[in-house]
């Protein structure tokens, strides 16, 4: 039923991705005149949430201007921020609801689209039960929308299955921080980074995925700080590392346990801190007893001397910071990896002080705010546990429902797709999420989507996932609505509506309210504005862990952001957590949690001897729904490539720029080799932003962490073979490499090895 109604080429011709290169009207058009307004808001691409001014003319976003007063990035922007305005006025933009017909997707009225959606949801529920409908949200939605989609699912749709694409981001860190500290937030503001004497960066490609953080790290180095980088690849941030640890994929916990072993062996722990502010140290100490440097080196592939040195630098520093991202979190033991970081920070007393802490680098635009207020399958607003009777009672009161009307925890993102595949879930409402590209094992996802009896998508472009939809509800870009997001450092910031949604497109919260009304819950969804939703969210979060009660749009504007928790109107917010050694658990202590290292879900074997790891490039964002439509960003890195070490390449008979077949236990893809010495010889890397045959997520596997439910994107077992020639997709002219540039004579034209021009 939910197969795409047209061929991929036909869909591409109408809905893109087409490449936008110029502001509206072209470089010499009227939009190049004086801007009517400069709107101070934030970049939509990534959890740094950089301040940016959007240039607006006649209700069109026509360019940008740096916002130098915003303290986090002080005008700095990565290429995605610079070019983000090209997603506006885009030819692919959905301007009205779409209905699947035999002739493809056709525009329809909101009334037709919404009444169909409500009717089909109820029909499926009457036939198969309430929980046969699932809802997917997204971490690019403002916090108001993330809050409201959680309420929509639980109150109006009445399903327990609501989860979101943040499940593919930092949830392993979230679970670990909750276990250890009782709260899911990076404990330190970014301004602490330059104050540290040692910064250890674990599995975080900061230069490409959190580019603005680079300056903070370099400032630490300017002040005499030492930089340690642990990663199977040398990413750009490695160029100034004082110590590089080339950890084997899947061995992060072992590396950190080895470091803790050395810290304890050499008595570098902070006994006073451990005794006064923590529980469970002895068990953790026992758990690392066998991880001597030689044993750890054998597991991790990191030299014993380097492990000793890293442990000594971290343990001897008065102020040390450990920063981590998806590299250690995207594992079936992602929670363990993060706990191992926390144990090291706690044992050395590096927490709750300026320049001392452990910090997760949340990746998605509203990755932090989007997970705090109720679109996670197991949480209610304010980071409350959905199983906690007191939490249910509080939220039920705000929602004006009975506590028992709020469903219990449902499935996580991957589990929802599994349940669709096995026929347990029959209908899906999906907002701002492109699971066909971003979930692991894409062929499985494709099969699942084609089994849905009803599928509604809410989005602003027709993503590859939306090709399978029965109805597509045209939503809004970030700059087309007001609201808040929360950045990676826990700073709640104000997103301004720069322009209204174009055509008949609607703000998502209006779509949710309309749907709720048609599902018979109009009186519980009576918001006139985002602000009204935020005011309810403040109440819903009040007294919770992520307490927003004291935050207002005005306070955010005045302070240039408010760090939560902010429990009262006269409270300035909390930039740094755990000061004075006070943690969020009822006992006020931090909890050491012992780590047991264990194998991953897709182990290497004789047949699949190579580690395949995946990640991002600087010019693309997540599944590329937006950034694969922005011409200059596509030109910068037009298609996925295989990073491979010359030793491995030589052994496989592969030369630079050869086409290579990469095969895992799921599928094969053909991709061009880039032979570089900056990756371990037992590991290859492919970035994941592309769809169809260019999607490396066809190769990844669905194993998830049992606690965080995050997929293991960072380790798959693979084998390689030189391909006879380019795959069909490389010959069909949609590779994205542009021929529009004028011929240029000069240094740049002659530069060898330039990215984007293989």
């Amino acid at each position, binding site marked *: 039923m939910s197969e795409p109604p047209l061929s991929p080429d036909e869909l591409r011709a109408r809905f893109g991705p087409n490449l936008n*290169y110029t502001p509206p009207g072209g*470089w*010499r058009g009227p939009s*190049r005149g004086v801007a009517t307004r400069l709107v101070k808001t934030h970049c939509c691409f990534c959890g740094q949430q950089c301040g940016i001014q959007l240039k607006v003319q006649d209700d069109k976003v026509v*360019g*940008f201007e*740096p916002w*130098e007063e915003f303290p986090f*990035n002080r*005008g*700095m*922007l*990565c*290429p995605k*921020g*610079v*070019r983000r305005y090209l997603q506006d006025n885009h030819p692919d933009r959905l301007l009205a609801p779409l209905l699947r017909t035999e002739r493809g997707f056709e525009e329809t009225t909101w009334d037709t689209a919404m009444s169909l959606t409500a009717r089909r949801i109820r029909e499926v529920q009457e036939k198969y039960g309430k929980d046969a409908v699932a809802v997917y949200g997204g971490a690019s939605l403002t916090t108001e929308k993330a809050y409201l989609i959680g309420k929509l699912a639980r109150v109006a749709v009445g399903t327990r299955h609501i989860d979101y694409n943040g499940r593919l981001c930092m949830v392993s860190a979230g679970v670990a921080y909750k276990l250890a500290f009782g709260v899911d937030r990076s404990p330190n503001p970014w301004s602490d980074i330059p104050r540290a004497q040692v910064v250890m960066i674990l599995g975080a490609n900061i*230069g*490409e995925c959190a*580019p*603005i953080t*680079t*300056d903070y790290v*370099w*400032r630490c*180095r*300017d002040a*005499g700080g030492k930089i340690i980088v642990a990663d199977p690849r*040398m*990413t*750009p941030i*490695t*160029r*100034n590392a004082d110590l590089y640890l080339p950890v084997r994929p899947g061995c992060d916990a072992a590396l950190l346990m080895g470091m803790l072993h050395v810290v304890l062996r050499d008595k570098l722990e902070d006994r006073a801190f451990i005794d006064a502010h923590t529980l469970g140290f002895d068990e953790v100490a026992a758990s690392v007893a066998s991880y001597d440097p030689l044993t750890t080196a054998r597991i991790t592939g990191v030299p014993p001397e380097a492990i000793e040195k890293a442990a000594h630098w971290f343990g001897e520093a008065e102020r040390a910071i450990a920063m981590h991202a998806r590299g250690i979190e995207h594992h079936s033991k992602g929670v363990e990896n993060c706990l191992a970081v926390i144990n090291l920070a706690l044992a050395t007393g590096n927490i709750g002080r300026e320049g001392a802490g452990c910090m997760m680098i949340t990746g998605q635009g509203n990755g932090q705010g989007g997970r705090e207020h109720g679109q996670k399958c197991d949480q209610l607003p304010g980071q409350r546990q959905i199983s906690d009777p007191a939490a249910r009672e509080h939220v039920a009161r705000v929602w004006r429902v009975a506590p028992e009307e709020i469903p219990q925890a449902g499935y996580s993102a991957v589990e929802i797709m599994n349940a669709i595949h096995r026929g347990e879930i029959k209908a899906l409402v999906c907002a701002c999420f492109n699971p066909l590209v971003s979930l692991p094992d894409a062929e499985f996802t494709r099969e699942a989507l084609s089994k849905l009896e009803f599928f509604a998508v809410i989005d602003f472009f027709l993503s590859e996932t939306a090709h399978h939809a029965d109805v597509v509800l045209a939503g809004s870009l970030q700059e087309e609505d007001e609201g808040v997001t929360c950045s990676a450092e826990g700073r709640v910031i104000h997103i301004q509506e720069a322009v209204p949604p174009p055509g008949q497109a609607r703000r998502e919260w209006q779509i949710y309210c309309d749907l709720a009304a048609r599902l018979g819950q109009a009186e519980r969804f009576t918001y006139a504005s985002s602000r009204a939703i935020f005011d309810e969210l403040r109440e819903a979060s009040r007294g919770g862990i992520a307490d927003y009660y004291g935050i207002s749009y005005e306070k955010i504007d005045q302070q240039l952001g408010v760090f939560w928790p902010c429990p009262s109107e006269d409270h300035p917010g909390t930039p740094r957590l755990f000061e004075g050694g006070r943690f969020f658990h009822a006992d006020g202590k931090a909890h050491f949690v012992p780590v047991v290292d264990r194998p991953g879900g897709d182990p290497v074997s004789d047949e699949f001897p190579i580690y395949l790891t995946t990640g991002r490039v*600087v*010019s693309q964002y997540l599944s590329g729904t937006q950034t694969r439509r922005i011409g*200059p*960003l596509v030109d*910068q890195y037009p298609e996925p490539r295989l990073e491979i070490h*010359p030793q491995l390449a030589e052994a496989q008979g592969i030369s*630079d720029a050869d086409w290579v077949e990469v095969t895992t236990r799921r599928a094969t893809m053909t991709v061009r080799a*880039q*032979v*570089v*010495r*900056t990756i371990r010889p037992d590991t290859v890397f492919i970035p994941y932003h592309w769809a169809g045959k260019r999607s490396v997520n066809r190769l990844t596997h669905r194993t998830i962490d049992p606690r965080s439910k995050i997929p293991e994107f960072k380790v798959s077992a693979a084998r390689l073979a030189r391909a006879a020639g380019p795959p069909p997709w490389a010959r069909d002219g949609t590779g994205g490499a542009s021929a529009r*540039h*004028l*011929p*240029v*004579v*000069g*240094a*740049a*034209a002659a*530069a*060898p*090895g*330039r*990215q984007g021009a293989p």
Partner: protein
Amino acid sequence: MTAGLQFFIDPSRCIGCRSCENACAECETHRGFPMIHVDYIDRPNSIATTPMVCMHCENPTCAQVCPADAIKQNEEGVVLSSLKPRCIACSNCVLACPFGVPKMLTALEQMMKCDMCYDRTSIGKRPMCATVCPSQALAFVSPDEIARQRREVPVNTFRFGAEEVRTKVSMMAPRGVEAVEIDVVDYMWEASS
């Protein structure tokens, strides 16, 4: 706002993100085409990249070799793109520049290059590339600030053999380096005896 501020390049900070190129291309005067560039130094062996803007030589070689006298310096010492009515697109400047900066746009039949965002600096704004640069490999700040914050020091004297080039833009170099010697001969005992 920009009085007293200077341009500093520190290639060791560069992460190769091309934010500078993208931002440069947004300029209203060259519309979609960057006048600066980022290069991998040796991608097969390293992730190191380096950004390059015009160094704005005190006595610019590009202008010296221009047969059409099309390249001018303004009163602040900024070396400008070629004058469109004068430029004959001969590429002499492209070949002569010791830093490899000018580009000849063949379709426009004109050499264009970084003019340190004259449109912005002349109205008190910082150059676009240095404003957005996430690693501050490109920085437009006061010399005091650079001296206070960085562990490297600015150098604006470059010796290409016998030829000394002094520039408006500074390159960050290890402490103790006062001029960058480009010619290997400068480091040889025989040559200096």
